[in-house]
């Protein structure tokens, strides 16, 4: 190691106890909340049995934050929230206010710095996303860039309650899906569309061959010997570009500027509210990587949200809405083409075939 260990080095102490970070008003009413209300988009009030109330102002976040920005956020919390704040499971910043009078001044300061307030109730909250070109080696697209352009487009839905229900959007930069892509109302997924390139010269040094072979979900990888060196080969017919081989073996990169891109998925949900949790389903098999602003992607997402907003009934999540109107109608009214790629062909795919005559024409 590069530096001297200092004597005080401690291990396995775990995180600080949350207790010390709770606003005194929260501490007093911990576990004794009675109900809540959204005073306006981005502002919640929770009332306790004691009659005390805590006001939450929820602010958008780029998630990727500089320490300078965090410190400025701290200034805001000091000024308006007695120095207490929290982050949400979707990376928003929540200021916890004992004093109702502070709400509007805080919002004013936030907005002045370009920080929208919203994300509550029937809105589109922040995008759950991943590392992409910022920090990951397996990415097929950039997550932060997509999240940014999409939210630029949907900003009005963040700061209002005008949707039929909450819409949860996620972006993942590869099939590892570090996040919520598989169960999101709208999900954008980075995809490869070419089999890995096998670097036979290096493979044996960098990878364990049995592990690499075992990594492939469709058994597309076989051990071979190339120029006297043990290596692997990929059956191009069986490969569906998932990248799991590359995760296991760096000698099998998949990234390809012209063929990588994203697919779009809709109708997932996690909450047990009304209906069961649902997986997201394929809506658009492929859109190109067109940085910096991915116009095809933002347009498609906007389109789906707008059609949903115009057609769904109150309380319907996107998946619930589509289940009601039926998938054929979804494709019809969004104008998205239904292709062979939409038909599942992985193991157990026939469970998705329509074994009923229930159809809407």
């Amino acid at each position: 190691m590069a530096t001297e260990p200092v004597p005080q080095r401690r291990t396995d102490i775990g995180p600080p106890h949350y207790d010390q970070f709770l606003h005194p008003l929260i501490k007093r009413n911990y576990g004794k909340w009675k109900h809540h209300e959204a005073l306006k988009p981005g502002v919640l009030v929770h009332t306790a049995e004691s009659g005390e109330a805590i006001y939450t102002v929820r602010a958008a976040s780029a998630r990727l934050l500089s320490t300078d920005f965090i410190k400025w956020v701290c200034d805001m919390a000091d000024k308006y929230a007695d120095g207490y704040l929290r982050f949400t499971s979707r990376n928003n910043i929540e200021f916890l206010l004992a004093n109702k009078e502070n709400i509007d001044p805080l919002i004013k300061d936030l907005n002045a710095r370009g920080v929208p307030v919203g994300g509550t109730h029937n809105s589109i909250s922040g995008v759950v996303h991943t590392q992409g070109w910022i920090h990951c080696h397996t990415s097929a697209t950039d997550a932060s860039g997509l999240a940014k352009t999409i939210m630029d487009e949907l900003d009005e839905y963040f700061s209002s309650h005008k949707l039929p229900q909450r819409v949860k959007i996620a972006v993942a930069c590869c099939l590892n899906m570090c996040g919520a892509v598989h169960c999101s109302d709208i999900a954008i997924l980075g995809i490869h569309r070419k089999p890995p390139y096998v670097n036979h010269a290096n493979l044996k040094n960098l990878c364990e061959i049995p592990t690499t072979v075992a990594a492939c979900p469709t058994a597309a990888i076989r051990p071979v010997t190339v120029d006297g060196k043990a290596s692997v080969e990929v059956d191009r017919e069986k490969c569906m570009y998932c990248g799991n081989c590359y995760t296991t073996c760096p000698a099998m990169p998949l990234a390809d500027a012209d063929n990588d891109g994203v697919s779009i998925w809709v109708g997932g949900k996690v909450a047990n509210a009304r209906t069961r949790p649902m997986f997201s389903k394929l809506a658009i098999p492929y859109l190109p990587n067109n940085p910096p602003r991915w116009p095809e992607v933002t347009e498609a997402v906007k389109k789906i949200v707008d059609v949903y907003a115009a057609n769904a009934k109150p309380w319907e999540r996107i998946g619930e809405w589509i289940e009601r109107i039926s998938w054929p109608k979804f494709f019809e009214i969004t104008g998205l083409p239904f292709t062979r790629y939409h038909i599942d062909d992985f193991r157990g795919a026939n469970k998705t075939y329509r074994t009923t005559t229930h159809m809407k024409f």
Partner: protein
Amino acid sequence: MEDKPKLDVPTPKLDELEKGPWPSFVTEIKRAATKSAMARDLVRQVEQSYNDRVGHWKHGGLVGVRGYGSGIIGRYSGKAEQFPEVAQFHTVRVNQPAGWFYTTKALRELCDMWDRHGSGLTNMHGSTGDIIFLGTKTEELEPFFTELTQKGWDLGGSGSATRTPSCCVGPARCEMACYDTLALTQDLTMEFQDTIHRPAWPYKFKFKMSGCPNDCVSGIARADFTIIGMWRDAIRIDQSAIPEYLGFEGFDLRRDVLDKCPTKCIEWDGKKLSINDKECNHCMHCLNVMPKALRIGKDTGATILLGAKAPIVEGALMSSVLVPFMKMEPPFTEVKDLVQRIWDFWEEFGNNRERVGELVTRVGLANFIEAIGLEPNPYMVMHPRENPYVFYDVDEAAE
């Protein structure tokens, strides 16, 4: 803090992402870049990616701090000659406080430490829940860790370890909480420190605690071990609060509550709301819509579900019910025992890179629960089997 920090390097592609109403991560990187050479090379490399339409990072090697096997994600640039300051650009996962609560004092301290040792860039937070300190060099890891622990912070999980448990805001600010998600998260995190810091499992293992079936940390989709608050007695009704809702513009009790109840177990006679609690499936909808009038029951605890994960290898899994209802009170012995029995079985029988949900799929739920000492229970399944391929144990059946 500058609103639009200017850099001496041209980033025409990324500059496009400083436009628009949403907060810009590019601006954030630029802010950091005004102080950090690493952040400066990061923005240059990312601009390059935006031009090339591919990422430029290599597989991470094994880096870490002494005595720990996890908490650091090693990362190396594939264009180190061009961007030498991110030749090494490791992230540090710091275990967040339960519920993501902070004081400004604590946050400032964290920022200061990171300014000294890293790029000045963070993710608040990573999708598992950690504080992500984004980008530093190998030589900075140990000093940063030392400072961190001195201030009372510790690393989170990575690799084939228990991952940093996370939870919803729960009883700290939510009236729906059926158990103390923060207390349980803190307790499990402390109890399982060793398994978080020293990867010893076949693969990763994630805990997520939600206070009620709204599941605000998405446990059912994203955690191997998912603890979701539950009640098993009657929903409490405050009849006097109903008129207020009836008065709301656009509110229609029948359309918005009664008809939306999936089990149609709510009745309203014009004066009194009644719920047939035996029929209620705890979907939360009525409580979500009318929190002033309806409250969760008093006999609270949690449902324990197992096995969610992302798609690779066999397709994504959601967690499924293991224990329909368990009381959830300190010292949480019952749940910890259950975790231990699961780990014992997984350690012994799990394949390399096999998540616990995949193990259950492979050995079968009935065998799995038998091995961990649970009885078969119809709550574990949506419905009994449809195929007749039953492995009868005749000797047993003959008894």
